[in-house]
Protein backbone atom coordinates (compact mmCIF):
# COMPACT_ATOMS: atom_id res chain seq x y z
CA UNK A 1 0.00 0.00 0.00
CA UNK A 2 1.35 3.43 -0.83
CA UNK A 3 2.30 5.89 1.83
CA UNK A 4 -0.68 8.15 1.46
CA UNK A 5 -3.09 5.23 1.39
CA UNK A 6 -1.62 4.02 4.63
CA UNK A 7 -2.03 7.44 6.18
CA UNK A 8 -5.56 7.76 4.91
CA UNK A 9 -6.47 4.33 6.12
CA UNK A 10 -5.08 5.15 9.53
CA UNK A 11 -7.06 8.36 9.61
CA UNK A 12 -10.23 6.47 8.82
CA UNK A 13 -10.44 7.22 5.10
CA UNK A 14 -10.81 4.29 2.78
CA UNK A 15 -7.59 3.49 0.97
CA UNK A 16 -7.86 3.35 -2.79
CA UNK A 17 -8.33 -0.27 -3.82
CA UNK A 18 -5.11 -1.82 -5.00
CA UNK A 19 -6.58 -2.83 -8.32
CA UNK A 20 -6.49 0.79 -9.41
CA UNK A 21 -2.73 0.58 -9.55
CA UNK A 22 -2.85 -2.44 -11.81
CA UNK A 23 -4.70 -0.62 -14.52
CA UNK A 24 -6.54 -2.56 -17.23
CA UNK A 25 -4.67 -3.58 -20.35
CA UNK A 26 -6.86 -1.13 -22.19
CA UNK A 27 -5.90 1.91 -20.14
CA UNK A 28 -3.40 4.24 -21.74
CA UNK A 29 0.19 4.12 -20.55
CA UNK A 30 -0.10 7.73 -19.55
CA UNK A 31 -2.87 6.97 -17.09
CA UNK A 32 -0.97 4.08 -15.58
CA UNK A 33 1.99 6.33 -15.07
CA UNK A 34 -0.18 9.00 -13.49
CA UNK A 35 -1.66 6.60 -10.97
CA UNK A 36 1.77 5.28 -10.09
CA UNK A 37 3.09 8.77 -9.51
CA UNK A 38 0.12 9.77 -7.41
CA UNK A 39 0.60 6.76 -5.22
CA UNK A 40 4.27 7.38 -4.76
CA UNK A 41 4.07 10.99 -3.65
CA UNK A 42 1.40 12.50 -1.43
CA UNK A 43 -0.07 15.68 -2.93
CA UNK A 44 0.04 18.48 -0.42
CA UNK A 45 -1.54 21.91 -0.53
CA UNK A 46 -0.66 24.88 1.66
CA UNK A 47 -3.57 27.19 2.32
CA UNK A 48 -2.81 30.56 3.81
CA UNK A 49 -5.77 32.20 5.53
CA UNK A 50 -5.54 34.76 8.37
CA UNK A 51 -2.14 33.99 9.83
CA UNK A 52 1.24 35.68 9.93
CA UNK A 53 3.22 33.17 7.80
CA UNK A 54 5.12 32.14 10.94
CA UNK A 55 3.97 28.55 10.61
CA UNK A 56 5.41 28.03 7.15
CA UNK A 57 8.61 29.79 8.21
CA UNK A 58 8.90 27.36 11.10
CA UNK A 59 8.37 24.49 8.66
CA UNK A 60 11.12 25.83 6.43
CA UNK A 61 13.52 25.89 9.38
CA UNK A 62 13.92 22.16 8.88
CA UNK A 63 16.62 22.87 6.30
CA UNK A 64 18.13 19.43 6.64
CA UNK A 65 15.06 17.53 5.56
CA UNK A 66 13.28 20.17 3.48
CA UNK A 67 15.06 19.72 0.15
CA UNK A 68 14.62 15.96 0.22
CA UNK A 69 11.03 16.35 1.36
CA UNK A 70 10.02 18.79 -1.36
CA UNK A 71 11.90 17.16 -4.22
CA UNK A 72 11.46 13.48 -3.60
CA UNK A 73 8.80 12.82 -1.04
CA UNK A 74 5.84 15.09 -1.62
CA UNK A 75 4.22 17.04 -4.42
CA UNK A 76 3.21 20.54 -3.49
CA UNK A 77 0.15 21.01 -5.66
CA UNK A 78 -1.30 24.21 -4.25
CA UNK A 79 -0.07 27.23 -2.32
CA UNK A 80 -0.06 30.96 -3.05
CA UNK A 81 3.67 31.50 -2.93
CA UNK A 82 4.70 27.96 -3.79
CA UNK A 83 2.80 26.92 -6.87
CA UNK A 84 1.45 28.80 -9.87
CA UNK A 85 -2.02 27.34 -9.61
CA UNK A 86 -5.16 29.28 -8.73
CA UNK A 87 -7.64 26.43 -8.98
CA UNK A 88 -7.87 24.22 -5.91
CA UNK A 89 -6.83 20.76 -7.12
CA UNK A 90 -7.50 17.34 -5.63
CA UNK A 91 -5.00 16.70 -2.85
CA UNK A 92 -4.18 14.20 -0.15
CA UNK A 93 -3.32 16.63 2.61
CA UNK A 94 -4.20 20.29 3.07
CA UNK A 95 -2.13 22.24 5.59
CA UNK A 96 -4.19 25.25 6.57
CA UNK A 97 -2.43 28.17 8.23
CA UNK A 98 -4.48 30.94 9.80
CA UNK A 99 -8.00 31.33 11.10
CA UNK A 100 -10.85 32.09 8.73
CA UNK A 101 -12.53 35.49 8.53
CA UNK A 102 -16.30 35.24 8.31
CA UNK A 103 -16.48 38.51 6.40
CA UNK A 104 -13.96 37.40 3.81
CA UNK A 105 -15.86 35.66 1.06
CA UNK A 106 -12.70 34.47 -0.70
CA UNK A 107 -11.28 32.76 2.36
CA UNK A 108 -14.59 31.07 3.08
CA UNK A 109 -14.88 29.82 -0.46
CA UNK A 110 -11.28 28.62 -0.55
CA UNK A 111 -11.67 26.73 2.73
CA UNK A 112 -14.87 25.01 1.59
CA UNK A 113 -13.29 24.05 -1.69
CA UNK A 114 -10.19 22.73 0.04
CA UNK A 115 -12.32 20.61 2.34
CA UNK A 116 -14.05 19.12 -0.66
CA UNK A 117 -10.87 18.41 -2.59
CA UNK A 118 -8.56 17.30 0.22
CA UNK A 119 -8.64 13.86 1.77
CA UNK A 120 -7.21 15.24 5.01
CA UNK A 121 -7.34 18.74 6.43
CA UNK A 122 -4.77 19.72 9.05
CA UNK A 123 -5.14 22.86 11.16
CA UNK A 124 -1.53 23.95 11.02
CA UNK A 125 -0.55 26.39 13.76
CA UNK A 126 -2.65 27.86 16.55
CA UNK A 127 -4.51 30.49 14.45
CA UNK A 128 -5.98 27.71 12.38
CA UNK A 129 -6.47 25.36 15.34
CA UNK A 130 -7.72 27.66 18.12
CA UNK A 131 -8.03 31.10 16.51
CA UNK A 132 -5.05 32.22 18.60
CA UNK A 133 -4.47 36.00 18.67
CA UNK A 134 -7.01 36.62 15.89
CA UNK A 135 -9.59 35.81 18.59
CA UNK A 136 -9.07 39.36 19.82
CA UNK A 137 -10.18 40.97 16.57
CA UNK A 138 -13.14 43.36 16.80
CA UNK A 139 -12.96 44.80 13.29
CA UNK A 140 -12.81 48.46 12.43
CA UNK A 141 -9.23 48.35 11.19
CA UNK A 142 -7.63 49.25 7.87
CA UNK A 143 -7.46 47.99 5.17
CA UNK A 144 -10.71 46.07 5.71
CA UNK A 145 -12.77 47.63 8.52
CA UNK A 146 -15.51 45.05 8.06
CA UNK A 147 -13.19 42.12 8.72
CA UNK A 148 -14.16 41.44 12.27
CA UNK A 149 -14.82 37.79 13.05
CA UNK A 150 -12.00 35.27 12.88
CA UNK A 151 -12.62 31.66 13.91
CA UNK A 152 -10.69 28.39 13.94
CA UNK A 153 -11.27 26.48 10.73
CA UNK A 154 -12.91 23.64 12.65
CA UNK A 155 -15.86 25.97 13.26
CA UNK A 156 -16.66 25.68 9.55
CA UNK A 157 -15.21 22.44 8.23
CA UNK A 158 -14.29 19.02 9.54
CA UNK A 159 -10.65 19.03 10.64
CA UNK A 160 -8.75 15.74 10.76
CA UNK A 161 -5.77 16.79 12.83
CA UNK A 162 -4.24 19.86 14.43
CA UNK A 163 -0.70 21.00 15.14
CA UNK A 164 -1.02 23.93 17.54
CA UNK A 165 1.82 26.33 18.26
CA UNK A 166 2.48 29.99 17.74
CA UNK A 167 4.21 28.87 15.64
CA UNK A 168 4.53 25.08 16.00
CA UNK A 169 8.22 24.31 16.48
CA UNK A 170 10.37 23.08 13.61
CA UNK A 171 10.86 19.89 15.64
CA UNK A 172 7.17 19.02 16.01
CA UNK A 173 6.71 19.63 12.29
CA UNK A 174 9.64 17.34 11.46
CA UNK A 175 8.44 14.69 13.91
CA UNK A 176 4.94 14.81 12.41
CA UNK A 177 6.27 14.49 8.87
CA UNK A 178 8.41 11.53 9.85
CA UNK A 179 5.47 9.91 11.62
CA UNK A 180 3.27 10.45 8.55
CA UNK A 181 5.88 8.87 6.29
CA UNK A 182 6.26 5.89 8.61
CA UNK A 183 2.52 5.58 9.09
CA UNK A 184 3.16 5.90 12.84
CA UNK A 185 -0.39 6.44 14.00
CA UNK A 186 0.48 6.11 17.66
CA UNK A 187 2.58 9.23 17.40
CA UNK A 188 -0.10 11.11 15.45
CA UNK A 189 -3.02 10.25 17.72
CA UNK A 190 -2.66 13.36 19.91
CA UNK A 191 -2.79 15.56 16.80
CA UNK A 192 -6.03 13.87 15.81
CA UNK A 193 -7.44 14.40 19.30
CA UNK A 194 -6.32 18.03 19.36
CA UNK A 195 -8.50 18.78 16.32
CA UNK A 196 -11.28 19.16 18.87
CA UNK A 197 -9.45 21.71 21.04
CA UNK A 198 -10.63 24.94 19.45
CA UNK A 199 -11.40 27.19 22.41
CA UNK A 200 -8.05 27.75 24.04
CA UNK A 201 -6.83 30.23 26.63
CA UNK A 202 -4.20 30.47 29.33
CA UNK A 203 -7.10 30.33 31.77
CA UNK A 204 -7.59 26.67 30.79
CA UNK A 205 -4.85 25.90 33.31
CA UNK A 206 -6.98 27.28 36.11
CA UNK A 207 -10.25 25.78 34.81
CA UNK A 208 -9.09 22.39 33.62
CA UNK A 209 -6.07 21.68 35.80
CA UNK A 210 -6.03 23.66 39.06
CA UNK A 211 -9.82 23.65 39.51
CA UNK A 212 -9.85 19.92 38.78
CA UNK A 213 -7.31 19.16 41.55
CA UNK A 214 -4.69 18.08 39.02
CA UNK A 215 -1.94 20.72 39.15
CA UNK A 216 1.35 19.52 40.61
CA UNK A 217 3.43 22.71 40.37
CA UNK A 218 5.82 21.44 37.70
CA UNK A 219 6.06 24.71 35.74
CA UNK A 220 5.86 23.09 32.30
CA UNK A 221 3.07 25.48 31.33
CA UNK A 222 5.11 28.55 32.24
CA UNK A 223 8.08 27.21 30.32
CA UNK A 224 6.00 26.46 27.24
CA UNK A 225 4.20 29.78 26.89
CA UNK A 226 5.61 31.44 23.81
CA UNK A 227 4.63 34.94 24.90
CA UNK A 228 5.74 34.72 28.55
CA UNK A 229 2.19 35.22 29.72
CA UNK A 230 2.65 32.76 32.57
CA UNK A 231 4.52 32.87 35.81
CA UNK A 232 4.48 30.45 38.75
CA UNK A 233 3.16 31.83 42.05
CA UNK A 234 3.08 29.55 45.10
CA UNK A 235 3.37 26.57 42.81
CA UNK A 236 0.45 27.45 40.57
CA UNK A 237 0.39 29.08 37.12
CA UNK A 238 -0.52 32.73 37.15
CA UNK A 239 -1.76 34.22 33.91
CA UNK A 240 -1.07 37.70 32.67
CA UNK A 241 -4.09 38.00 30.40
CA UNK A 242 -2.67 40.97 28.55
CA UNK A 243 0.09 38.80 27.14
CA UNK A 244 -1.98 35.68 26.39
CA UNK A 245 -2.60 35.06 22.67
CA UNK A 246 -4.90 32.07 23.27
CA UNK A 247 -2.63 29.65 21.45
CA UNK A 248 -3.37 26.79 23.86
CA UNK A 249 0.22 25.61 24.08
CA UNK A 250 0.40 25.78 27.89
CA UNK A 251 -2.52 23.39 28.27
CA UNK A 252 -1.33 21.18 25.41
CA UNK A 253 2.11 20.76 27.06
CA UNK A 254 0.83 20.34 30.65
CA UNK A 255 1.47 16.75 31.79
CA UNK A 256 -1.96 16.72 33.40
CA UNK A 257 -4.00 17.47 30.24
CA UNK A 258 -3.19 14.32 28.21
CA UNK A 259 -0.48 11.83 28.86
CA UNK A 260 1.37 9.94 26.07
CA UNK A 261 3.07 7.40 28.34
CA UNK A 262 3.74 4.67 25.77
CA UNK A 263 5.29 7.11 23.29
CA UNK A 264 7.56 8.60 25.95
CA UNK A 265 8.77 5.18 27.05
CA UNK A 266 9.44 4.28 23.44
CA UNK A 267 11.41 7.49 22.87
CA UNK A 268 13.50 6.83 26.01
CA UNK A 269 14.07 3.16 25.25
CA UNK A 270 12.32 2.19 28.50
Amino acid at each position, binding site marked *: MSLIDRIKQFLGFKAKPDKEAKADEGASKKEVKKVAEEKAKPRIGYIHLSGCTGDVISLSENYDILAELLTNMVDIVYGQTLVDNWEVPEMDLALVEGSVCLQDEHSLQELMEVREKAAMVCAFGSCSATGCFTRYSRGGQQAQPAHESFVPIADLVKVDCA*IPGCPPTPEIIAKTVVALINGDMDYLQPMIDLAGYTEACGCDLQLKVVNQA*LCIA*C*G*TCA*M*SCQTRALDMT*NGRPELNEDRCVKCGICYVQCPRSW*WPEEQIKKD*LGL
Partner: protein
Amino acid sequence: MVLGTYKEIVSARATDKEIQNVSQDGGIVTGLLAYALDEKIIEGAVVAGPGEEFWKPEPMVAMTADEIIAAAGTKYTFSPNVMMLKKAVRQYGIEKLGTVAIPCQTMGIRKTQSYPFGVRFLADKIKLLVGIYCMENFPFASLQTFISEKMGIDPTLVEKMDIGKGKFWVYTQDDVFNIPLKETHGYEQDGCNVCLDYTCELADLATGSVGSPDGWSTVITRTEDGNSIFQQAVETGVFETKDMANVKPGLDLLEKLAAQKKDKNQKTIDKRKEMGLPVPY
Protein backbone atom coordinates in the same frame (compact mmCIF):
# COMPACT_ATOMS: atom_id res chain seq x y z
CA MET B 1 6.98 -3.45 37.34
CA VAL B 2 6.51 -1.55 40.54
CA LEU B 3 9.91 0.20 40.24
CA GLY B 4 9.59 0.94 36.50
CA THR B 5 12.03 -0.17 33.83
CA TYR B 6 15.63 -0.15 35.02
CA LYS B 7 19.10 -1.40 34.32
CA GLU B 8 20.58 -1.63 37.79
CA ILE B 9 19.79 -0.86 41.42
CA VAL B 10 22.56 -0.24 43.96
CA SER B 11 23.08 1.45 47.26
CA ALA B 12 25.56 4.32 46.91
CA ARG B 13 27.01 7.43 48.49
CA ALA B 14 29.32 10.23 47.41
CA THR B 15 32.89 9.77 48.62
CA ASP B 16 33.52 13.53 48.89
CA LYS B 17 33.28 14.61 52.55
CA GLU B 18 31.98 18.08 51.70
CA ILE B 19 29.13 16.59 49.68
CA GLN B 20 28.40 14.05 52.43
CA ASN B 21 28.08 16.88 54.94
CA VAL B 22 25.66 19.07 53.00
CA SER B 23 23.57 16.36 51.35
CA GLN B 24 20.33 14.78 52.41
CA ASP B 25 21.37 11.15 52.17
CA GLY B 26 24.03 9.68 49.89
CA GLY B 27 24.59 12.94 48.01
CA ILE B 28 23.84 11.27 44.70
CA VAL B 29 22.13 14.22 42.99
CA THR B 30 24.79 16.70 44.10
CA GLY B 31 27.67 14.33 43.38
CA LEU B 32 26.43 13.31 39.96
CA LEU B 33 25.57 16.80 38.71
CA ALA B 34 28.92 18.12 39.95
CA TYR B 35 30.68 15.20 38.24
CA ALA B 36 28.77 15.76 34.98
CA LEU B 37 29.77 19.45 35.08
CA ASP B 38 33.42 18.62 35.69
CA GLU B 39 33.42 16.07 32.88
CA LYS B 40 31.63 18.53 30.56
CA ILE B 41 28.78 16.07 30.05
CA ILE B 42 26.64 19.08 30.94
CA GLU B 43 27.40 22.82 30.91
CA GLY B 44 24.91 23.77 33.59
CA ALA B 45 22.04 22.38 35.64
CA VAL B 46 18.66 23.55 36.83
CA VAL B 47 18.31 22.79 40.55
CA ALA B 48 16.09 23.87 43.44
CA GLY B 49 18.15 26.54 45.15
CA PRO B 50 17.50 28.54 48.30
CA GLY B 51 14.84 31.23 47.92
CA GLU B 52 14.35 34.57 49.60
CA GLU B 53 11.98 33.29 52.23
CA PHE B 54 12.75 30.53 54.65
CA TRP B 55 13.07 27.17 52.95
CA LYS B 56 10.99 28.34 50.03
CA PRO B 57 13.12 27.06 47.18
CA GLU B 58 13.49 28.81 43.84
CA PRO B 59 14.62 27.09 40.68
CA MET B 60 18.11 28.26 39.73
CA VAL B 61 20.69 27.62 37.04
CA ALA B 62 23.95 26.30 38.50
CA MET B 63 27.02 26.63 36.29
CA THR B 64 29.67 25.33 38.71
CA ALA B 65 30.06 22.42 41.10
CA ASP B 66 30.14 24.90 43.99
CA GLU B 67 26.75 26.27 43.04
CA ILE B 68 25.39 22.73 42.89
CA ILE B 69 26.76 21.96 46.34
CA ALA B 70 25.27 25.18 47.71
CA ALA B 71 21.83 24.01 46.56
CA ALA B 72 22.08 20.52 48.10
CA GLY B 73 19.39 19.06 50.33
CA THR B 74 15.80 17.97 49.78
CA LYS B 75 13.10 20.62 49.63
CA TYR B 76 9.63 19.67 50.77
CA THR B 77 7.65 22.28 48.89
CA PHE B 78 7.28 23.45 45.29
CA SER B 79 10.15 24.49 43.10
CA PRO B 80 8.84 24.65 39.53
CA ASN B 81 12.18 23.64 38.02
CA VAL B 82 10.77 22.86 34.59
CA MET B 83 10.00 26.52 34.09
CA MET B 84 13.69 27.33 34.38
CA LEU B 85 14.87 24.94 31.66
CA LYS B 86 14.04 27.29 28.81
CA LYS B 87 15.76 30.15 30.58
CA ALA B 88 18.87 28.01 31.08
CA VAL B 89 19.03 27.37 27.35
CA ARG B 90 18.02 30.82 26.10
CA GLN B 91 19.52 33.18 28.66
CA TYR B 92 22.52 31.20 29.85
CA GLY B 93 23.25 29.74 26.42
CA ILE B 94 23.57 26.21 27.81
CA GLU B 95 23.72 23.60 25.05
CA LYS B 96 24.01 20.57 27.32
CA LEU B 97 21.71 20.78 30.28
CA GLY B 98 21.28 18.70 33.41
CA THR B 99 18.47 18.88 35.94
CA VAL B 100 16.96 17.24 38.99
CA ALA B 101 13.25 16.55 39.06
CA ILE B 102 10.53 14.78 41.00
CA PRO B 103 8.33 12.33 39.05
CA CYS B 104 5.64 14.82 37.96
CA GLN B 105 8.21 17.36 36.81
CA THR B 106 9.92 14.58 34.90
CA MET B 107 6.61 13.86 33.19
CA GLY B 108 6.36 17.49 32.09
CA ILE B 109 9.90 17.43 30.70
CA ARG B 110 9.50 14.09 28.93
CA LYS B 111 6.18 15.09 27.37
CA THR B 112 7.80 18.27 26.06
CA GLN B 113 10.61 16.19 24.57
CA SER B 114 8.30 13.73 22.82
CA TYR B 115 5.78 16.38 21.72
CA PRO B 116 7.52 19.76 21.53
CA PHE B 117 4.53 21.64 20.09
CA GLY B 118 5.56 25.05 21.33
CA VAL B 119 9.00 24.66 22.91
CA ARG B 120 11.75 25.19 20.35
CA PHE B 121 15.20 23.66 20.48
CA LEU B 122 15.11 22.46 24.07
CA ALA B 123 14.24 18.75 23.82
CA ASP B 124 17.63 17.59 22.57
CA LYS B 125 19.63 19.78 24.95
CA ILE B 126 18.55 17.94 28.11
CA LYS B 127 21.43 15.52 28.60
CA LEU B 128 20.95 14.35 32.17
CA LEU B 129 17.74 14.12 34.17
CA VAL B 130 18.29 12.91 37.72
CA GLY B 131 15.00 11.87 39.27
CA ILE B 132 14.15 11.71 42.95
CA TYR B 133 11.63 9.47 44.65
CA CYS B 134 8.52 11.29 45.78
CA MET B 135 5.43 10.28 47.71
CA GLU B 136 3.80 13.71 47.77
CA ASN B 137 4.62 17.41 47.89
CA PHE B 138 3.39 20.13 50.23
CA PRO B 139 2.34 23.72 49.59
CA PHE B 140 4.60 26.13 51.48
CA ALA B 141 1.82 27.04 53.90
CA SER B 142 1.43 23.37 54.86
CA LEU B 143 5.10 23.27 55.91
CA GLN B 144 4.54 26.41 57.95
CA THR B 145 1.67 24.67 59.71
CA PHE B 146 3.79 21.63 60.59
CA ILE B 147 6.69 23.68 61.85
CA SER B 148 5.10 26.70 63.55
CA GLU B 149 1.80 25.24 64.71
CA LYS B 150 2.35 21.53 65.25
CA MET B 151 5.97 21.61 66.44
CA GLY B 152 5.97 25.12 67.81
CA ILE B 153 9.33 26.09 66.30
CA ASP B 154 10.40 29.36 64.73
CA PRO B 155 10.76 28.45 61.04
CA THR B 156 13.86 30.61 60.66
CA LEU B 157 15.76 28.23 62.99
CA VAL B 158 15.15 25.18 60.81
CA GLU B 159 18.26 23.86 59.10
CA LYS B 160 17.07 20.63 57.55
CA MET B 161 13.89 18.66 56.98
CA ASP B 162 13.50 14.98 56.34
CA ILE B 163 10.89 12.28 55.97
CA GLY B 164 11.71 8.82 57.24
CA LYS B 165 10.69 6.08 59.65
CA GLY B 166 7.07 7.20 59.45
CA LYS B 167 7.85 10.70 60.67
CA PHE B 168 8.39 14.22 59.39
CA TRP B 169 11.65 15.51 60.94
CA VAL B 170 12.92 19.03 61.47
CA TYR B 171 16.48 19.81 62.55
CA THR B 172 17.60 23.04 64.19
CA GLN B 173 21.14 23.71 65.26
CA ASP B 174 20.71 22.04 68.66
CA ASP B 175 17.53 20.01 68.42
CA VAL B 176 15.58 17.47 66.45
CA PHE B 177 11.78 17.58 66.26
CA ASN B 178 9.25 15.31 64.61
CA ILE B 179 5.58 14.71 64.02
CA PRO B 180 4.07 11.43 62.85
CA LEU B 181 3.50 11.43 59.07
CA LYS B 182 -0.16 10.76 59.79
CA GLU B 183 -0.44 14.34 61.00
CA THR B 184 0.71 15.64 57.61
CA HIS B 185 -2.10 13.86 55.77
CA GLY B 186 -4.58 16.16 54.16
CA TYR B 187 -1.94 18.89 53.88
CA GLU B 188 -0.34 17.54 50.66
CA GLN B 189 -1.32 19.05 47.32
CA ASP B 190 -4.25 17.11 45.95
CA GLY B 191 -2.70 16.69 42.50
CA CYS B 192 -0.26 14.23 44.10
CA ASN B 193 -3.09 11.85 44.89
CA VAL B 194 -3.54 10.72 41.27
CA CYS B 195 0.19 10.23 40.65
CA LEU B 196 1.28 6.60 40.28
CA ASP B 197 5.01 7.20 40.09
CA TYR B 198 7.08 6.92 43.27
CA THR B 199 10.54 6.09 41.88
CA CYS B 200 10.67 8.61 39.01
CA GLU B 201 10.23 5.98 36.33
CA LEU B 202 11.03 8.26 33.37
CA ALA B 203 14.29 9.77 34.64
CA ASP B 204 17.72 8.84 33.28
CA LEU B 205 18.38 7.54 36.75
CA ALA B 206 16.48 7.93 40.00
CA THR B 207 17.54 8.12 43.62
CA GLY B 208 16.32 8.53 47.18
CA SER B 209 17.09 7.34 50.68
CA VAL B 210 14.48 4.59 50.87
CA GLY B 211 15.97 1.09 50.96
CA SER B 212 19.46 2.15 51.99
CA PRO B 213 21.07 2.71 55.42
CA ASP B 214 21.48 6.22 56.88
CA GLY B 215 23.89 8.31 54.83
CA TRP B 216 23.37 6.14 51.75
CA SER B 217 20.93 6.31 48.83
CA THR B 218 19.30 3.76 46.57
CA VAL B 219 20.15 4.44 42.92
CA ILE B 220 18.06 3.06 40.05
CA THR B 221 19.66 3.51 36.63
CA ARG B 222 17.17 3.55 33.78
CA THR B 223 18.22 4.91 30.37
CA GLU B 224 21.44 4.01 28.53
CA ASP B 225 22.82 7.49 29.16
CA GLY B 226 21.83 7.54 32.81
CA ASN B 227 23.39 4.16 33.38
CA SER B 228 26.67 4.95 31.65
CA ILE B 229 27.13 8.33 33.36
CA PHE B 230 26.55 6.72 36.76
CA GLN B 231 28.91 3.82 36.03
CA GLN B 232 31.61 6.27 34.91
CA ALA B 233 31.19 8.24 38.11
CA VAL B 234 31.51 5.07 40.18
CA GLU B 235 34.65 4.00 38.30
CA THR B 236 36.16 7.44 38.81
CA GLY B 237 35.56 7.11 42.54
CA VAL B 238 32.87 9.80 42.87
CA PHE B 239 30.59 7.22 44.48
CA GLU B 240 31.12 4.06 46.46
CA THR B 241 28.46 1.38 46.10
CA LYS B 242 27.08 -1.63 47.91
CA ASP B 243 25.02 -4.48 46.60
CA MET B 244 21.34 -3.98 47.49
CA ALA B 245 21.21 -7.57 48.71
CA ASN B 246 23.64 -6.64 51.50
CA VAL B 247 22.00 -3.49 52.83
CA LYS B 248 19.20 -2.87 55.25
CA PRO B 249 16.30 -2.13 55.02
CA GLY B 250 16.80 -3.19 51.38
CA LEU B 251 14.83 -3.29 48.17
CA ASP B 252 11.71 -4.71 49.80
CA LEU B 253 10.95 -1.43 51.50
CA LEU B 254 11.33 0.55 48.27
CA GLU B 255 9.04 -1.88 46.47
CA LYS B 256 6.55 -1.73 49.30
CA LEU B 257 6.33 2.07 49.26
CA ALA B 258 6.17 2.22 45.45
CA ALA B 259 3.32 -0.31 45.46
CA GLN B 260 1.52 1.54 48.26
CA LYS B 261 1.56 4.77 46.27
CA LYS B 262 0.26 3.02 43.16
CA ASP B 263 -2.52 1.19 45.02
CA LYS B 264 -3.69 4.13 47.05
CA ASN B 265 -3.66 6.59 44.15
CA GLN B 266 -5.23 4.15 41.70
CA LYS B 267 -8.18 4.11 44.09
CA THR B 268 -8.33 7.91 43.97
CA ILE B 269 -8.21 7.77 40.17
CA ASP B 270 -11.04 5.25 40.05
CA LYS B 271 -13.09 7.32 42.45
CA ARG B 272 -12.52 10.46 40.40
CA LYS B 273 -13.58 8.65 37.26
CA GLU B 274 -16.75 7.51 38.97
CA MET B 275 -17.51 11.12 39.83
CA GLY B 276 -16.88 12.13 36.21
CA LEU B 277 -13.77 14.17 37.01
CA PRO B 278 -10.94 14.25 34.47
CA VAL B 279 -7.78 12.17 35.02
CA PRO B 280 -4.97 12.14 32.48
CA TYR B 281 -4.02 8.50 33.15
